[in-house]
């Protein structure tokens, strides 16, 4: 049995999990406030556009979106197996393809700003 290539996706999962642990609660809270009709200043068009237009802002948004997606994709693959879906190879292709597409789209959208 050869050494596994899972380190590639596991490292993205682990990095994403750490970033999500640090940032997901507070970022989701910002959007929850917006849903309650009390959108924070940062989520206003002017502020957010200026943030996303800045190269560091772009890098931040890209990192957050991509790593959250890869984290979720890998854990979803494991969870589906745990729930009894045993087509692991197919599941892996679907979830990683989704995470990859999301990463590419976020790059594209951020490049437009």
């Amino acid at each position, binding site marked *: 049995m050869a050494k596994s290539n899972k380190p590639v996706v596991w490292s993205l999962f682990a990095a994403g999990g750490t970033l*999500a642990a640090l940032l997901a609660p507070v*970022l989701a809270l910002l959007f929850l406030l917006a849903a309650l009709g009390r959108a924070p200043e940062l989520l206003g*068009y002017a502020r957010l556009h200026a943030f996303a237009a800045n190269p560091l802002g772009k890098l931040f948004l890209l990192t957050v979106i991509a790593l959250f997606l890869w984290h979720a994709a890998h854990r979803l693959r494991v969870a589906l197996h745990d729930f009894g879906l045993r087509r692991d190879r197919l599941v892996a292709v679907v979830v990683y393809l989704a995470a990859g597409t*999301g990463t590419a789209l976020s790059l594209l959208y951020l490049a437009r700003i």
Partner: protein
Amino acid sequence: MSRRPFVRLVSGTRWYFGHPRYLRYMSREVTCIFIGAFALLLLRAVERLSAGQAAYASFLAAIAGPWSALGLSLVVIFALHNAVSWFNVTPKALPVQIGEGFLPGGFIVAAHYAAWILVSLAVLLFAGVL
């Protein structure tokens, strides 16, 4: 003397009801659905942002309301669950040996919680909430 070992089968779809710790584990694993959904929401926000002011304003209007608030509340709760379960096991993955002893796991966990609180406060300040 004939051997005839008996194999007990484990259900592939319901095994996690077999012990509370398995349910706790599964509750951690399903956080990924909410983290993933939130990432898609962020992606959508960036897409609308790139489409101009009017598009972004309609996005903000679309996510306002009780159902969004409920969904985002769930995201916050599961994101907290992910954070706590993640930080609590950091000493296992990354132990720190100092001389003959190890840094107590509680220190490593506490350092992560401290960083978490600082980052959260910084984001809230930057966002204009505080």
